[in-house]
């Protein structure tokens, strides 16, 4: 078998695998577009000749949909921005500075990820209630509480990932900058920051998914203020499999997935090159 032949075979396999992996997503969008009669059909077909936006309409006409969407965007954006800033600074400290207790800190970051999030809802609930007494904007029923919690849950993994990216920037560069008279702070922001940007993007993806997909905390913390609900929480109203309204379920799923997907595709190149960069170093 020649090399070219085997590569062609590999490529065919790749495309087939890609199709298989993408199929559930295709099925989700397709089912969302099918008219009601076709979804409940016992003879499902992988195409439709009569696409309709009925299912989307049912979901989108939820009162206050725009508001919930905006809430989710606000929470996710705040979490991404803050976690990037914080994890970048911490990663710099953990890779570039030598101080006692560093190893312990690293182990702690790993351990922190092992605690089941669901079990923490109760202590966090009471914590947020106390926080709310001091800073109302971060208390229960407010979006701020969600930002704090998601930030705390994304940080350990973000710092853990970013360490690799920061470590990949050669130390000689820092020495050179110092000789040129740049302060450490300036080096960090003007040289290091742009260099690890791909890594930051890769990390932000995970923080974004985390904040965007959550419904556990949204459900627990946003007790009675309906105007502060987030999208997954509002959309979950449609997840009632006992009624077999698969059209609405698939439409809601599509609406939940699309923003993350767009975000992913936008940062896709940097994600891969970022990870690669971290490894090459």
């Amino acid at each position: 078998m020649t090399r070219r032949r085997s590569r062609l075979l590999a490529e065919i396999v790749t495309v087939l695998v890609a199709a298989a992996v993408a199929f559930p997503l295709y099925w989700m969008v397709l089912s969302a577009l099918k008219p009601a009669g076709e979804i409940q059909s016992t003879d499902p077909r992988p195409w439709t000749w009569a696409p309709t936006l009925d299912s989307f309409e049912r979901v989108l006409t939820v009162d206050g949909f725009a508001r919930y969407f905006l809430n989710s965007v606000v929470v996710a954006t705040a979490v991404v921005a803050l976690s990037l800033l914080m994890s970048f600074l911490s990663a710099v400290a953990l890779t570039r500075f030598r101080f006692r207790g560093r190893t312990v800190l690293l182990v702690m970051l790993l351990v922190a990820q092992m605690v089941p999030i669901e079990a923490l809802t109760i202590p966090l609930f009471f914590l947020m209630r106390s926080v709310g007494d001091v800073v109302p904007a971060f208390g229960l029923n407010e979006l701020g509480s969600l930002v704090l919690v998601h930030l705390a849950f994304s940080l350990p993994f973000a710092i853990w990932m970013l360490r690799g990216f920061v470590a990949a920037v050669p130390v000689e560069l820092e020495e050179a900058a110092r000789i040129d008279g740049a302060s450490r702070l300036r080096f960090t922001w003007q040289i290091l920051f742009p260099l690890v940007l791909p890594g930051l993007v890769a990390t932000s993806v995970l923080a974004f998914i985390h904040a965007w997909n959550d419904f556990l905390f949204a459900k627990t913390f946003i007790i009675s203020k309906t105007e502060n609900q987030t999208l997954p929480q509002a959309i979950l109203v449609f997840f009632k499999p006992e009624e077999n309204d698969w059209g609405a379920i698939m439409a809601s799923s599509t609406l939940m997935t699309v923003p993350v997907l767009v975000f992913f595709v936008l940062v896709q190149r940097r994600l891969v090159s970022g990870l690669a960069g971290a490894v090459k170093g």
Partner: protein
Amino acid sequence: MKFRTIAASLALVVAAGCAPAQSGSTGEGGDERTGTLRVWLFDEANRDPKEKVVDQAIAEFEAAHEGVTVDVQWIAVESRADKFAGAFNDPANAPDVAEFGNTDLAGYVEAGAFADLTGDVESWEHGADLLPDVLDTATVDGKVYGIPWFTGIRALYYRTDVFAELGLEPPATLAELAETARAVRQAKPDMYGISVGGKYVYAMLPFLWASGGELARPENGQWTSALTSPEAIRGVTAFADLISPGICPPEQCADFTGTQSVQAFAGGKAAMTIGGDFNRKAVEEGGLKGKYAVVPLPGTERGSIAPAFAGGNLLGVFGASERRGLGVEFAQLLASPKYQSEMYSAMGNLPTLASVQRELARNDPFLQPFVESMAAGTRFVPATPAWSQIDAQGVLPTAIQRIATGEARAREALADAERQMNEAFGG
């Protein structure tokens, strides 16, 4: 500085935190006359008609109270436990009014969240008209914690067309019920003889009670599970046996909830089901209008009626509500004769006011079997805070499912359930 404040407050909490956090005693609440009144109502299998009636009531209420807006949040029945727990743990952010099931009453009262409405019910113009039995299900230690909104009684729905075609009669005993169901599925293999489910506890209870069994017995103020008595085992087994390939195959039915069981019947997939008065709309909208009838669920002996579970929902006002007066007035409006009748026509809900119920039963033969079941005597789950927990942990559904799937024998499954119940009762 944002962080400094947070850090300061955290330091405060840490210093205080050697024991788990506890809420202070429930806030005093207040009686503001304007602002947003937050209301929690249960989401239903078919919410539209309920929502329409509620919207109408809101419009009336807002027109009568200037500067008041009513904000309704629809709560899924299945996930109500965490929702209410959140409200109990942070009274300051709890809603003002909530609909809740009478089985949860004891637990909610123990959490101390709901306001004592005894005086409000007494002074209410329709207060005296509330059916005494129904008001009992809203009462703990002589205090009323909710205004009964509607009663839920379940009876046997069956397909008149299918029964006529196969020459069957509505069953007169529970044993006949199983036979009839088997006969239907034999003749029509793509139909369930009766659609019931492993998670449909309220359909199982009449079987348990009709066989002479009991869920639990109170002894010296302490409840003890009675699930392993021979009567209880017989009753639960009779129900679990319906979830079998010859009647309602476990692959489909073992996981059915009450809603799903009724949905299957409404969708024409079953010849019988156990459904409530409140399920009428769902059944008729499924296209079965004129093709079904309802009879009381029979007991073990000919001519007897199996004790029905006296379900029902109440409207309570949170103790910490800043708008107690408005909350009570809104609950009273929803429970008024006008809206009880509206809810009856919208959902089929059985009214809790004697006059309304009499009036409706006279004009509508549909209500007859439910009223009859009620008159034959109803039973209730153990009136203890532990019941909410037993319910939330799915103790009984798990037992039914284990028997139905053959994973455990009835005695074994019920012994496990008994242990879990006693653990909950014990504290």
